[in-house]
């Protein structure tokens, strides 16, 4: 079942075309990652999907409705964590979750959520005094107070330390295990590879490739790189048959053989000419 359907979506800001006719679908219960360098059009796409920005043209259906005319019931099935730290600075985590619980008419236990997120000890601390990681966790907490079907996470781990990032991944994986559909935008390759069922790479407003991680790598046509030392000379071979090449090299007495298969980062570099973080 498709929870998001996008067909020939365009968004223009005066002279700038931020999104140029993209089309994709997101299946229920999957983690769909939208990757791209800064200015690729990721955030604009997310904002159109959640109904905070109007599209210039194209067809968009999210949970069966046009985002520009979401009903209250559909809004209750959605949850969004924005890239900016959109939060009430002078409220405590407990009060903020209470606010969201009331707004979404959720029936979850705030205490349990705060404990699950390791924020129980900070429940009375004003949000402005929380660390970057704690604030992100609190933002993630706002989507746990109700039972959304579709969750949008716009760069949820940007500028977090590795430990905090892993904490957020754990939450995302738990949500995925519960059958939630997650639409993720990220800068981090490792994150996309770890969490995604489907990745979609955008560059300059267009989708340059899309599919399961292995499919995307295969479609890119990138070859495995085998490096070795043969007769005191460094050699580098690009091949689609690394096992065969390795065997040949071993036969010839090559040493220090290294095989590096292409990964998502190589694919990204291949399509965008830019390195991800």
């Amino acid at each position, binding site marked *: 079942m498709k929870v998001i359907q996008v067909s020939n979506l365009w968004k223009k800001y005066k002279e700038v075309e931020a999104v140029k006719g993209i089309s994709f679908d997101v299946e229920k219960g999957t983690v769909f990652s939208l990757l791209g360098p800064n200015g690729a059009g990721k955030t604009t796409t997310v*904002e159109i999907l*959640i*109904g*905070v*920005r*109007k599209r210039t043209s194209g067809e968009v259906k999210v949970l069966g409705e046009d985002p520009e005319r*979401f009903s*209250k*019931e559909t*809004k*209750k099935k*959605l949850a*969004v964590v*924005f*890239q*900016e*730290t*959109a*939060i*009430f*600075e*002078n*409220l405590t985590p407990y*009060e903020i979750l209470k*606010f969201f619980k*009331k*707004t*979404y*008419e959720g029936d979850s236990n705030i205490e349990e959520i705060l404990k699950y997120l390791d924020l129980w000890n900070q429940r009375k601390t*004003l949000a402005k005094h929380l660390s970057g990681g704690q604030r992100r966790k609190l933002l993630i907490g706002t989507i746990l107070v109700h039972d959304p079907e579709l969750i949008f996470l716009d760069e949820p781990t940007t500028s977090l330390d590795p430990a905090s990032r892993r904490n957020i991944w754990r939450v995302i994986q738990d949500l995925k295990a519960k059958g939630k559909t997650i639409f993720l935008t990220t800068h981090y390759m490792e994150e996309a590879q770890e969490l995604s069922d489907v990745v979609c790479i955008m560059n300059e407003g267009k989708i340059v490739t899309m599919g399961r991680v292995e499919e995307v790598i295969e479609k890119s046509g990138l070859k495995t790189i085998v490096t070795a030392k043969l007769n005191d000379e460094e050699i580098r071979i690009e091949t689609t048959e690394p096992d065969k090449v390795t065997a040949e090299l071993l036969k010839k007495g090559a040493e220090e053989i290294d095989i590096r298969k292409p990964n998502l980062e190589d694919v990204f570099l291949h399509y965008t000419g830019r390195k991800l973080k």
Partner: protein
Amino acid sequence: MITFFLDNYLRNKSMLFWIIVFPSLFYFTFSTIFYKLGEDFKPELEADIPKIFFNVLKDHFDIVQIRDENKIIQDVKNGTADCGIVLKSGEFVVYYTSRTTSSIAKDMLESFFSAFGFGGKEIKVEIIEAKGKRLSSYEYYFPAGVLMVILGVGFFGGIYTEAWFKEIGLDKLFKILPQRKLPIDLMMFLSHFFAMLISLFALVTVSTIMGVNVNYKNLTFSALFGAIIFIPFGIGIGKVSGKHSELVANLLYFPMLFLSGAFFGVSFKYNPATTIVKILRGKMEFSQIALWVVISFAIYIAGSAWYAKAE
């Protein structure tokens, strides 16, 4: 939801400073610096009194001519005028209160009229109300304080909060929330209005301590009218001013405050006294009020339309 807004708003220490401490401090300081204001005698003269009396009196007093006797009595009561002179059934009636300046003005007028002769007319002196104090600088600047609260908390606050919400992305968050009994802008209006009331409460407390006899009817009307005008005005401008909001707010706030007329003497020839100042001084002009409500909402709607289009 308004409670969450207000909690978030009022826990901000700098906001509290601007809402409570600053208006009271500014009002107190301004009133103290210009403490001598209000010592000039300001009689009001009925329009039917022969012009010759007016011409003679104006050389000695800061005098105005008014047609309505009731208005004269009201002005003397609330201290806008020190005393009033009315020609009634062939005799002059001098209205005054027990305020020091009023009593002195009455005595001076009596002796002046006696010396002048009056063409045989009787002088009747009538005390209308004993209020104790003369118009102090605190009373004089009270409208300025009220206006500063309305402009500062309502207008400036409206611009600043709207722009700040945009900056941190709260505007987007509000758009996706499903449970909204009231539109977000209305909640913003109400939270600013409540903050304005808190600020006015602080100002009224300081004023009362300093001996100001607050006219609550006029104050309530001004607060309501000021909120309806300036909060939507501020929100509308906040929507279009973006990251320049603080600059825009300052550029508009200070000239508006100055040109409001609150800092000008009532008898000053070029007093630009605006609607709210007139209300606070007991002079309501409903056509002006209606006009300003229309202008303010037009700016709010234009700002909202611009914002929606920009999105």
